[in-house]
């Protein structure tokens, strides 16, 4: 898809270089390769690189129910105090907490590691039941008020979306089948860790729920997903039972279509989600310490096609590098993957994508 002599992943790495000359040369390559212009990945890279000195400055825009982002109006920027609109303030604060988390815990400067500007768009569309990352910014709907409430009301949802940005700027896991489910899981891991860090909660005290605040009080559902017990987040007449598996034996085979959720990216993420929960409980203490560092380093060591088995193997070797071979941390990693049906260091027994 890229008609370019330098593969995009190498340009990506070059843009991450601490040497300004190398970053500049990579930028020139991107910009002068006219055929690349307008391609989503490249737009994101250019946007990120151009705003390097911004130190992750925040801007929150009001879409005023439009779905066309360029029409949105800037409501609050980094140095502004709170404004009248609650959604604007919630998005602003959520982005700030998540930015501080990456800076303090992983010494990462914003989404791209180089201070990329953080842009949030609120009140997108009319009664829109969603939040997403479009490659450059985070976009939030108000919810329909019947099933879903305002999506800016959930810190773990904000951190989940920002986590997609971090993944896009590191492994850039493709959004289908296992790499896609891993992409989803890494965003849930980010959402949980940011929430627990913000609340000062140890792994055993946390609820491990994603999106517990996005349903209206009338809806009988705990959350969108449970990392502690995938498959139990909801069960009601309106939209049925949570389909997430918690073990490879229950992996859900779905086609790479819109209807199939790109091969079940929001469904099979339950398996690596459960593994992270088990590692955090196994090691004990705060999820964002050893468990978070093992996962973050493994994300940085992954590629766009990394599958569950490969990611499990990477977490095992990273745990060894960071805490020592046969350390309690490394043993906890092996035990956690074992419990979800993935044997570290083995060939996958199932030929699942």
């Amino acid at each position: 898809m890229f008609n370019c002599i330098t593969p995009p992943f190498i340009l990506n790495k070059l843009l991450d270089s601490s040497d300004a000359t190398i970053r500049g040369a990579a930028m020139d390559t991107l910009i002068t390769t006219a055929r690349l212009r307008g391609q989503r990945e490249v737009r994101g890279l250019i946007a990120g690189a151009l705003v390097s000195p911004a130190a992750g400055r925040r801007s929150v825009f009001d879409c005023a129910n439009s779905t066309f982002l360029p029409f949105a109006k800037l409501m609050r920027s980094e140095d502004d105090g709170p404004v009248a609109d609650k959604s604007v303030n919630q998005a602003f604060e959520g982005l700030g907490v998540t930015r501080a988390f990456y800076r303090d815990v992983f010494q990462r400067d914003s989404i791209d590691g180089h201070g990329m500007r953080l842009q949030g768009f609120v009140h997108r569309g009319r009664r829109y039941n969603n939040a997403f990352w479009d490659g450059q910014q985070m976009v939030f709907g108000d919810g329909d008020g019947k099933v879903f409430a305002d999506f800016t009301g959930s810190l773990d949802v904000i951190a989940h979306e920002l986590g997609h940005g971090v993944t896009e700027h590191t492994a850039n896991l493709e959004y289908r089948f296992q790499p896609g489910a891993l992409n989803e899981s890494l965003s849930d891991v980010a959402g949980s860790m940011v929430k627990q860090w913000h609340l000062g909660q140890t792994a055993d005290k946390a609820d491990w729920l994603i999106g517990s605040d996005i349903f209206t009080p009338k809806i009988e559902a705990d959350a969108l997903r449970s990392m502690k017990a995938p498959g139990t987040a909801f069960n009601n007449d309106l939209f049925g039972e949570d389909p997430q598996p918690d073990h490879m034996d229950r992996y859900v085979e779905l086609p790479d279509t819109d209807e199939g959720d790109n091969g079940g990216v929001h469904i099979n993420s339950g398996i690596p989600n459960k593994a992270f929960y088990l590692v955090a409980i196994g090691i004990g203490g705060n999820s964002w310490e050893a468990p978070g560092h093992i996962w973050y380093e493994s994300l940085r060591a992954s590629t766009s096609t990394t599958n569950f088995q490969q990611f499990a193997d990477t977490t095992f070797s990273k745990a060894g590098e960071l805490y020592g071979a046969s350390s309690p941390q490394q043993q906890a990693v092996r035990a956690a993957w074992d419990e979800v049906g993935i044997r570290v260091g083995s060939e996958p027994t199932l030929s699942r994508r």
Partner: protein
Amino acid sequence: MRVSLTTHGGLAAPINSRRPPRTLDTDRMPAATAGQLRRLVAAVLAEGGGGRPDRGRDAMTYTITIDDDGRAATVTGSDTSMSAAFGALLSLIERQTD
């Protein structure tokens, strides 16, 4: 003419896919709204639809099926890539089926 909309994907993908499609029938709506629906459908069909949309993370995708006297067509769009005409048709369907 009958028009139906299904929505997939998004942060709550498994829930969205289980919700029933939204359908409109020009025979059962005010003439002015029916006319607007026909014009927007014509505008979207004139663009030709085309290809599977870009996969924005957690973006929703929309499939609109049009059945006009036995002639059927399907068009798709997503939150991160949809034309102005598609967006207008989508919001008309959403407003009329709330």
